[in-house]
C-alpha cells in the first residue's frame, strides 16, 4: 500500500464481451481529499465504483481501497465496513419505512452516529413513518445520503449524489461533504454538476471510454491551464506548435486559439514571433477542460 492513498488501482479493466467498459485504469485518490470523478454517460464511472466495492469483479488489473484488495472477498467485506456508499440509482427497500430502513442499516456499522442521524432526519425533513416507496425521488436521495452520512467512514464513495436534489438540498449535501473531510474522511464522488465539482473538489479525474484522461488537482488546473487567443490582421500562419502541454489548436477566420495545459508562458513567448495583433490570455474553467478533453479523446 502506498502511504496516503485511499484508492489505488493498477491497470484495472472490465470487459463485457468485446466491450471494454473500463480500460487499464490507474486511479490514485489521495486520503483526506475530495476527488471528483467526471465522465460522460457510459464512460465507465459506475462500473469502476462497482469494482472498487466488490460488486463486480475486474477482468484484469488490481485495486486497493483503504489498503485492502478489492479482488479478495474477505478484504472487500472489511473495507466496506469503513466505506459509505451512495449508489447512482438510490433505490432502497420500498417495503420498509424510513425508520425501519435506518434501523436496518445502522445494525451493520459500528461507526454509526445517532446524533448525526437525528440531525439529518430533521434537516432533510424525512417522515420516519413513511414507506420508502411513498417517497419522492428527491426524498429518496436524501434518505440514501442520510444512510451514508450518519456514519464516520474513512471513505465516502458517492455516485451522482446531487441528482434529483433541489438547490437548497445540494447546498446541504456539499456542506456535509466538507464537514466529513474536515474530520478526516476521504470523498470520491462522480457528478455531472461541474459547478459543484469546481467549488469543493481538490482533485479531478476525467474518464472517457474507460480510460483515465486527466488526473489533476484543481489548484494546478487553475494555475496552469490557459486559453491563449491570437488575433491577426491577415490569415493566421500555418504553424505546428510542437510544445508539450498544448492540448489543442484551433483556427477560426483570423484568429487562432490554443488550449495550453502547461508552459503557457513559453507558448506566449513563442507566439510573439508570429506578430499577432493581440494576444489574449484567459483562464480555463473546468467545464471547458472536460469538454475539450473528451472531444480530443474522440
Amino acid at each position, binding site marked *: 500500500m502506498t502511504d496516503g492513498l485511499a484508492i489505488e488501482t493498477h491497470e484495472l479493466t472490465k470487459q463485457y464481451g468485446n466491450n471494454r467498459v473500463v480500460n487499464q485504469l490507474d486511479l490514485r485518490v489521495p486520503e483526506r481529499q475530495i476527488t471528483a470523478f467526471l465522465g460522460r454517460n457510459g464512460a465507465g464511472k459506475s462500473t469502476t465504483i*462497482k469494482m472498487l*466495492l*466488490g*460488486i*463486480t*469483479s475486474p477482468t484484469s488489473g488490481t485495486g486497493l481501497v483503504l489498503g485492502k484488495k478489492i479482488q479478495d*472477498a474477505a478484504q472487500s*467485506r*472489511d473495507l*466496506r*465496513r469503513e*466505506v459509505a*456508499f451512495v*449508489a*447512482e*440509482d438510490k*433505490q*432502497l*427497500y*420500498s*417495503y*420498509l419505512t424510513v425508520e425501519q430502513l435506518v434501523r*436496518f*442499516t445502522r*445494525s*451493520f*456499522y459500528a461507526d454509526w452516529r445517532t446524533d448525526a442521524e437525528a440531525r439529518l432526519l430533521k434537516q432533510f425533513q424525512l417522515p420516519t413513518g413513511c414507506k420508502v416507496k411513498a417517497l419522492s425521488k428527491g426524498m429518496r436521495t436524501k434518505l*440514501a445520503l442520510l444512510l451514508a452520512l450518519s456514519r464516520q467512514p474513512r471513505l465516502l464513495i458517492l455516485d451522482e449524489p446531487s441528482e434529483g436534489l433541489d438547490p437548497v438540498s445540494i447546498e446541504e449535501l456539499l456542506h456535509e461533504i466538507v464537514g466529513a473531510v474536515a474530520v478526516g474522511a476521504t470523498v470520491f464522488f462522480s457528478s455531472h454538476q461541474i459547478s459543484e465539482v469546481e467549488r469543493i473538489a481538490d482533485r479531478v479525474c476525467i474518464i472517457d471510454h474507460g480510460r483515465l484522461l486527466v488526473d489533476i488537482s484543481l489548484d494546478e488546473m487553475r494555475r496552469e491551464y490557459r486559453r491563449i487567443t491570437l488575433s491577426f490582421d491577415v490569415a493566421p500562419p500555418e504553424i505546428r506548435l510542437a510544445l508539450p502541454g498544448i492540448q489543442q489548436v484551433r483556427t477560426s477566420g483570423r484568429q487562432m486559439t490554443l488550449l495550453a495545459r502547461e508552459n503557457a508562458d513559453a507558448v506566449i513567448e513563442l507566439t510573439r514571433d508570429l506578430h499577432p495583433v493581440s494576444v489574449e490570455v484567459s483562464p480555463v474553467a473546468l467545464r471547458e477542460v472536460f469538454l475539450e478533453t473528451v472531444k480530443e479523446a474522440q
Partner: protein
Amino acid sequence: MMLLYKAWRESRLGFVLSLTALAAICTLFCLFPRGDLQHKYTFTQTMYLVTYAGVLRNIFIVLTLLLGLGGFLRERSYGTLAYTLALPVRRSRFIAARAVVGFAELSALALIPAVLVPMFSRWSHQPYPSIPQALHFSVLWMVCGTMFFAFGLLLSTFVPGDYPAAATCLISLFAYLMVLEFAPLEKFPSLDLFNVIAAWHMPYFSGRDTCFVTYLPWRTLSVITLLAVITISVAGQIVERQDF
C-alpha cells in the same frame, strides 16, 4: 438478525398469499370433496386422495418452488442491489437468511392440512386423520418442500426476472415428472418426491386404511434434507462468485 428480517419482509406477501390460497383450497376440498371419488372410495380415502396425495399436494409443491424465488437478480431489477451488496456482509449469508425464513414459511404451509383436514372431517363426523397422523404428513411435506424450495432458490440465482424464473421452475417440475416416467427409475420409488410427500405406495403407509403403519423413512428424509442443504450451499457459492 436483520438479514432474517429482510428475508421475511421480502417474502411476506408471497407467503401470506400462499397461506391464504392453500387454506382456502384445503377448506373447499374438505367441505366439498369430489362426488365421483366418494362413490368409489371411503371418506378417509377420498380425503387422502384430494389433499395429501392430490391437488393440494401439487399446489403446495408449486408454492414452495415459488417461495424460493427472489434474491439478488430480483433486487437488481428493483435497483436496490448496489445498496445490498455494499453492505459489509458475505453474500452467502443473504442466501442462508432466505433459506431459514423460507423453511419456516413452508413449514407453516405444511401444517395447514394438519390443522384443517382433521377439523373439517370432524364436522362430517368422520374424523381423519388423527393429529399424530396429520403431523406425519406435515413432516413429509416439510422435508420434501424444503427440497423444492431449495431448487427454486438455486434457479433464482441465475434466472433473472420473476416471470422467467417462475416459468423455469414450472418447466423444470414438468421435466422432473417426465424423467420419473423413465422405466429404470421405477426401481427407486424414493426418487419421486411427489410420492414420498404423499407416502403413495410406500411401505410405511397403508393406502387402504390411509394411515402410517410404521416409522417415517428417516433415512430417505435425511438424504433429501442433505440434498436440499447442498443445493442451498451451491446457490451460496454461485452468488459469492457472481458478477453484478
